[in-house]
């Protein structure tokens, strides 16, 4: 073992910082530091800026057109971007369907989508979950029937994040209703295809990013079948593994903790700063300990990825990372005092971009909205209970 940091990686961090100082538009950074849902336009613009620099797709190897960074550089890059307030690049495109297309898709599919993902020209909705197939994805019932060179899709998906501003939906469908998991295929569908109806679902932060999507005789060309028919389940598992490797949400946890520190230094209680309360400071310190543990397990996971580790580290990180996000959020709300109960509208959701906010400190808007929305972190990407079962079965062999 050797835990020395490569000086070249230190220099890389500086390079990323300098780039962010020059290239990240201030208004985008300001919006993204708030807890409200991000704007797709910000994400698009930022992806284009990154692509001009050759840094789009930080987790993509160079043969796919990415920068081909080592795991630790990907980690540094995400960390710096997030701390600076850069938008997430499209997780669905870069970390889920992109790698699946590049690994299993046809040459035509790679050519069609690879460059468009890198340039932020195509955004994705992930159509996996259904009303009766959430944790138990294998029991999905949306049907796709082949008719000539098209598939005809009927069914219903739910919880499809950001599909309202997506261009393409990648979805799991039943192509063989008899076989359970072998009968599942992965299809790409134009979001604007006739027969698609989208019903918005508002979350308890009163934000909008969730949807129910109805498919009524929706047609998609057979060339949009990903890989082989009936293999959708194994592609989905591949993709969910990729998703979970990042599910500690280390950068988000780190930034939220930083924000909490800033609040604790400014908020006052009974005449003293919140941070001067020993109890509050001790709980903050405890969160920092949790964060450090998460950082080092994430780093280990990234390094060991190449060697193919057996520890179900994605599940471990998912469980603790999501819990930490909720705990930090809880202390942020606490730091707001009375203003933690006030409803703040998302100013960016209004055309003027400006609202008559209720009174309170400038850092208040968005905190509670995010805290509420993040109740879902322990549910989405596979509920934590399911992750624990995976850990018990796959590693402890219970």
């Amino acid at each position, binding site marked *: 073992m050797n835990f020395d940091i490569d000086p070249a990686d230190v220099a890389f961090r500086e390079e990323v910082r300098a780039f962010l100082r020059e290239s990240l538009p201030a208004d985008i950074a300001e919006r993204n530091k708030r807890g409200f849902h991000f704007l797709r336009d910000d994400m698009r613009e930022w992806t284009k800026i990154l692509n001009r620099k050759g840094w789009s797709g930080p987790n993509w190897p160079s043969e796919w057109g990415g920068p081909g960074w080592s795991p630790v550089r990907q980690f540094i890059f995400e960390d710096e971007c997030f701390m600076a307030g850069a938008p997430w690049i499209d997780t669905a495109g870069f970390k889920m369907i992109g790698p699946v297309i590049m690994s299993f898709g046809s040459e035509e599919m790679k050519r069609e989508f690879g460059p468009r993902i890198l340039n932020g020209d195509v955004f994705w909705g992930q159509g996996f*979950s259904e009303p*009766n197939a*959430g*944790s*138990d994805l294998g*029991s999905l019932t949306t049907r796709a029937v082949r008719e000539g060179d098209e598939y005809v899709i009927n069914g219903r998906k*739910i*919880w499809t994040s950001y599909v309202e501003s997506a261009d393409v939906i990648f979805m799991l469908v039943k192509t063989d209703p008899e076989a359970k998991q072998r009968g599942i295929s992965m299809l790409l569908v134009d979001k604007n295809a006739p027969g698609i109806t989208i019903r918005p*679902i*508002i*979350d*308890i932060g*009163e934000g909008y990013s*969730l949807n129910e999507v109805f498919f009524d005789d929706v047609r998609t060309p057979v060339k949009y079948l990903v890989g082989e028919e009936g293999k959708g389940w194994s592609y989905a598992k591949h993709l969910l593994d990729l998703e979970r490797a990042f599910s500690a949400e280390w950068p988000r946890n780190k930034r939220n903790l930083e924000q909490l520190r800033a609040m604790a230094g400014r908020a*006052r*209680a*009974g*005449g003293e700063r919140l941070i001067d*309360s020993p*109890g*509050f400071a001790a*709980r903050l310190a405890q969160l920092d300990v949790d964060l450090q543990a998460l950082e080092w397990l994430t780093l280990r996971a990234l390094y060991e990825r190449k060697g193919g580790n057996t520890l179900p580290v994605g599940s471990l990180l998912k469980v603790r990372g999501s819990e930490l996000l*909720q705990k930090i959020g*809880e202390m942020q*709300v*606490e730091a*707001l*005092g*009375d*203003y*933690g*109960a*006030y*409803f703040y509208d998302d100013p960016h959701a209004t055309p003027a971009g400006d609202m008559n906010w*209720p*009174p*309170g400190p400038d850092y208040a808007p968005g905190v*509670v909205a995010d805290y*509420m*929305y993040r*109740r*879902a972190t*322990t*549910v*989405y990407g596979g*509920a*934590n*209970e399911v992750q*624990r*079962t995976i850990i018990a079965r796959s590693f402890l062999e219970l």
Partner: protein
Amino acid sequence: MDFQLTQEQQMLKDSARRFLEDNCAFEARGSVIGNGGFDVGHWNTFAELGWLGMSLPEEYGGLGGSAIETALLMEEFGRVLCIEPYWAVAVLAAQTIVASGDQDKAGSILPALVAGEACPVVAHGEPDARGMLSYVTTSAVPAGPGNWTLKGNKSMVIGGNVADRFIVSARTSGAPSDQTGITLFLVDRSVPGVKLHDVRLIDNRWCADIDLADVQVAEADVLGTVGGGYAALDTGHAHATVGLCAEAVGVMEKALWITRDYLKTRKQFGVTLSSFQALQHRMSEMLIELELSRGMVHKALSTMNASPEVRQLALSAAKVHVGRSGKFVCGQSIQLHGGIGVTEEYVIGHHFKRMTTIEYALGSSHFHLEQLAAMERKRVA
């Protein structure tokens, strides 16, 4: 000791549950929220049923009940997530007025309150107080004989958007955290210099932030004695705290049963969710936390006539426990529902939101734990 309800108490509980489930259920809240959390019809019914005077002395038109009756009602309000400002008016304001010892003012306001005609609320909270009851920076400066000028800001005055008058705490002497030197003033909502800023809260109740810019008040507007407001606030808040904790028990309990029912019907992996032992144990923990919190409410109720110190320790302990249990029970209720739990349309997330606002009202569990920790230091020293 007897944990059984009396016949009257049982009747109160039953009739409250019936009325609230029929009229104030979650599904029916939409228009009430739009009206600033207030429905005149509901309020009149509360008055007719005697709820507004349930725990007030008979001499003021009340029914002579105690904090126990308040707690019984508040628990029922909690179950349906009632957003009407019952707690702010009929508990906090009413009990503060009684405790002020100002019989003239109590005699003129409380019968009207009981009848649903007067709607006073306490404007005491300030952003930096965070549960410290003695923390008041709003000032009352003498302005000629018998007159005062009020200046300051009050935050999160629950029901302030519909109140007809405010019981404003202001400092007539001393430093921000002193218990002495706090005076209560009755201030009409229409008095010049009172600026109200209505705010909807995340749990869909409404409050007002109040700017007091050189508000002129007279000697006749003092509630109780000059400089002697703390004791009244303390007793008013004691009733309000135990009421809030009882409400929390109602919020938790309903969340628990909604979740139990959901687990018994929702199927994944070919079986109902209720068949997973991981979830059965979670539900058991939720029930344990809920019932321990109820125990803390009982304990707090038992100290309502004890000395303020003894009472405060029990209330702080109750607030700490309820804060922890509430977060756990309502948070896990969302978790066990999965995606549907985080939707605004569905009820369970609103139990979590109400618990969140209860947790930070009248001092967070952290604040109250620190009070208890200070007590521990004294015990050991």
